[in-house]
């Protein structure tokens, strides 16, 4: 894009790769840079205030709202987006089939338990749930509710989302 207002150059470390950002405006949020400059539209914008969690990414091990992070301040941070949760095998072409075989247990549970309707909150929730289960593999029901209470879902009423998290916890517990 021809951009008359920005000339910042920096590099972000996203999903294990260095991603140069060119000709950027310094006021851009991490969410904007991910979506509009780096072809990573998985994180969604829905409130611009850190209230809805749709833009959740992992930054240096913390779940953060990428709409509240200035992209240029994220230089040097290790960033994981929803796109980075899938184990990409570079030798395999990305098709519907290969992606289906590579999605995580959390992603699979969201589909199977009905945790997805319109899907706009889903990527943020998927990232938040991965983050929760990494920190706390066997959360109580209330801990699940509290930890995802920063992710607003307008469609499901959360019931099927709780069911998805519970299903993952049980399967992981059984396989340990």
């Amino acid at each position, binding site marked *: *894009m*021809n*951009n*008359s*207002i920005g000339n910042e150059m920096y590099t972000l470390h996203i999903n294990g790769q260095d991603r140069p950002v060119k000709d950027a*405006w310094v006021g851009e949020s991490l969410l*904007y840079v991910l*979506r509009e400059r780096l072809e*990573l*539209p*998985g994180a*969604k*914008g*829905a*409130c*611009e*205030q850190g*209230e*809805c969690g*749709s833009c959740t990414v992992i930054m240096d091990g913390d779940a953060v709202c990428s709409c509240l992070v200035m992209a240029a301040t994220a230089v040097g941070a290790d960033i994981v*987006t*929803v*796109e980075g949760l*899938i184990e990409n095998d570079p030798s395999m072409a990305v098709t*519907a089939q290969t*992606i*289906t075989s590579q*999605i995580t247990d959390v*992603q*699979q549970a*969201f*589909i*199977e*338990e*009905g945790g*997805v*309707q*319109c*899907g*706009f909150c*889903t*990527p943020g929730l998927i990232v938040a749930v991965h983050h929760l289960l990494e920190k706390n593999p066997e959360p109580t029901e*209330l801990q*699940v*509710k*509290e930890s995802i*209470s*920063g*992710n*607003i*879902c*307008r*469609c*499901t*009423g*959360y*019931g*099927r*989302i*709780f069911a998805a998290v519970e299903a993952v916890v049980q399967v992981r517990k059984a396989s340990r």
Partner: protein
Amino acid sequence: MSTVKQDTRHRDILGTSALRPDGVAKVTGAFSFSSDMWAENMLWGATLRSPHPYARIISIDTTAALLISGVSAVITAQDVPGKATYGLISADQPVFASDFVRYMGEPIAAVAADHPETCRRALAAIIVNYEVLTPVVDPELAMLATTEQIHPDGNLIRHQHILHGEAHITSDITVEGNYTIGMQDQAFLGLEAAMAFPDSGGNGVELHIATQWLHEDRGQIAACLNLPEDSVRVVLGGVGGAFGAREDISLQVHCCLLALRTGRPIKMQYSREESFFGHVHRHPAKIWMKHHATKEGKIVKVESRMVFDGGAYTSTSPAVLINGITHTQGPYQCDNAVVDGYAVRTNNPPCGAMRGFGVVQACFAHESQMDKLAHACGLSPVEVRLINAMHTGDKLITGQVMESVAPVERCIRETDLIPLPAPLALDANVLEFPGGSGRTADRHNIVRGIGWGVSMKNLMYSEGFDDYATARCTLSNGIASLKFATSEVGQGFVTLAPQIARSVLGVDDVVLETSDTQIGSAGSTSASRQTWMSGGAVDGACRLVRERLFEHVGRLHNIDPIRLMIEHTDVIDTIGTFRISVTQATQGITLSETFEHHHRKTEDLDENGQGNCHVAFAFVAHRAVVDVDIELGLVKVVQVATAQDVGRVLNPLSALGQLEGGIAQGLGLAVMEEIILDNGRVKNPSFTDYLLPTALDAPHVVAIMIEEPEPQAPLGAKGIGEPPCISVTPAIVAAIRAATGKALSRVPVRPQDICL
């Protein structure tokens, strides 16, 4: 386009919890929402909006904005080549305001530039001189002839009277009340977004848009652009929820105008703040209602006066009003009624469709009344509702006979049998207290209450409107391909349509073609209508293709086609032993049929509000259990039990998702969600200040689906989208009344309504 591959051991036919075909794309972030689009050479579009609820525009100067580097276009009302106004029912809303602005946030100009920040600077550089006027914000005053008329069409959008039975009859007991319903926002997560591609030569445009009704959008856009409808192609962009807010035009015309002006693709997306100004909301309403009943609690007459604040432009106000007043009686028998309803224009934000569409407002009033009636007669909330429960064959207050299956009694009885939750433990985790993560409630101040709500909701459009749906099915080499313009907004029609095709045709692989205007209309994804209407269209198209398949197989194998049927994935001879797989039978041939599903005709209401104006109805009961901190006025909804009349369950998992999701929205209206206005100004256009239910606010939902197939419905299934959000609101408020003893006549119930 997505292909749905099937495991051969399990077939995702009707009645199974088939999974969403877009599920993998949605959980991986690969699904393309309309805001995810990007194009080479694209520009960003943005909208200048009025800061005033009511003002005369003296001048607009765009000179400085055009001089900013990176700005390609600035357009105002004078750049609209066609019709200057649009609207769903009455074209009374300007594409851009030019003489008056009639609500805060009304569009005045739009810009196209190379970056959202450039757009912001360009909007700031447009100079508009206003003569600020005193807004008309009270609908009671606005409807008076002596009040300033703020629009050439006048302030009274619609008045409708209902007189049924004897106007002056009364009985042993009367109960009455005044009720207020606040302005709720649909608050879908996926903000308004679109991308417009101009045709080379500028004689047409293709718009990718998150909308509820592609064809209606196209008609309104084409008129404003002064283009033939064929030159405007509207393609469904990925939709992040709708709930009524995408039925009206928002950025559609602006985006197309900018694309045609610049000759480049234009991307527009609203911020959350802009979204609060960019779409219609649920009508705030004031309702007076009076019931006359025998001392045994049997309703004799209902009287009501309802005033709906339509805001500055008509949108769907006339239809919302009719829904409200024709549901005055609720799901109860009532032989006599006198009702007057008014939809009024004010300088408040425009109101229109939101899940429940007028019935939410009426239901809060009639259910509050039912509890008053129960109290006056010494009955329980359940008893008074059972005594009055409506049945199939009853006459409504419009004179229309209830022809739908009406299992009202069963909804109430089955809800009543759902076990109540355990009492709040003395040592319960504070997160379970009212106030949630705020952790401010004191266990000793928490009181539990139980309340009821029951509702009736019309399905499909009313008053003579033929909201048909179209679908095409193409069968070739064992793969069925479906084409329809039905908007998938999250509800799951993309799951249901392949289930129908598999059930009818015995195929496993179903391809969904792009939803766009290259086929006939599907009508709107609203009014709980797409399972019935587009489901009926897909079913009809698949059945026609199946007839053609049987003719083809019959001809080849010398069997009368009438003897053929589908069993599993085969065509079989019901008399002989012949069997051939559908895949084999369709090798090298293509069978394609298009079907339009129309519901039965309805009528306008006469001057006394009499007429067969609705198509069909669905029913639901809700029982809410709440914990209230009576000192701080905080509420925690602990459990919602519900039994809903669904006709037939076509996908149990999807259906449960609709019930739970609707209940959360009804909870929002009961205790959290309200757009706060101050003399026409919106005070809380953000998710920081407009509160939505979070995971900690979600109640435990126990749901029963009552399956009594509806003979009128093509698949036996009623629409299930709206009923869940309607009577849960009064049920929650009744539970708070039970806990607090407060009268609580408005929603949302605020802390100060409880503790002050």
